[in-house]
């Protein structure tokens, strides 16, 4: 048992409207609730979760904002976002629902190497 391994959860597939997006955040919150230190990396369509002003009640969905904003309260504070994925979508870091550190491909490679567990959802 190595209860203090640090895990990295890569959220790389789900736009916020997918139930799967919620299910990925649920895993982060579950890990945090069990005291497992966890970092999050938003990539590809996953970065779309960070857009402010999502009026998701118009399509009868719970906003992901509340799940995202709960992360720091659960102790999930190392949040990263892939610069390349942002650029592909014409987005810039800095005006998101939660603060994420923008990282380039080399920095992502380092993140993958330096975490003990890596799970992509």
């Amino acid at each position: 048992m190595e209860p203090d391994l640090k895990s990295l959860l890569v959220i790389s597939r789900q736009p916020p409207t997918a139930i799967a997006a919620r299910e990925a955040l649920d895993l982060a919150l579950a890990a945090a609730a069990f005291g497992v230190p966890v970092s999050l990396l938003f990539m590809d369509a996953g970065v779309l979760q960070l857009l402010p002003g999502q009026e998701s009640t118009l399509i009868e969905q719970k906003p992901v904002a509340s799940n995202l904003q709960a992360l720091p309260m659960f102790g999930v504070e190392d949040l990263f976002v892939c610069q390349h994925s942002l650029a592909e979508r014409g987005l810039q870091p800095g005006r998101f629902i939660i603060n994420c550190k923008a990282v380039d491909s080399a920095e992502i490679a380092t993140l993958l190497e330096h975490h003990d567990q890596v799970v992509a959802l």
Partner: protein
Amino acid sequence: MKFAIALLAGPQDPAARSALMFAEAVLAGGHQISRLFFYRDAVHLASTLGVQPQDECDLARRWKAFINDNGLDAVVCIAAALRRGILDAAEADRWERPVANTGEPWVLSGLGQWVDALQTADRAVTFGT
């Protein structure tokens, strides 16, 4: 080594077979499987109601046999299962549904079981992303 294996895709996805082949090879290689975890559409594998065409392989049946034969811990995420209409007798009762469509050897439980498996296994491998 102790492996934790998670499957995210449903019975209609090639991943449902890949994960099974891999799990069988893990045991054949002298390793252990500390837990199987079924999330998202993979919860449908726990359904007892699927009927496959005679000339197609029945992965739900094969997973069940594999789990039983090797006495494995096979956890189905309860939140994902409820959403998708996969209920054991206890949940059918709790939510006042007339019938259940899963049961032994599958165990409905929380995401914490996956977190725990990730922490305690030597290797964690996910299929069906």
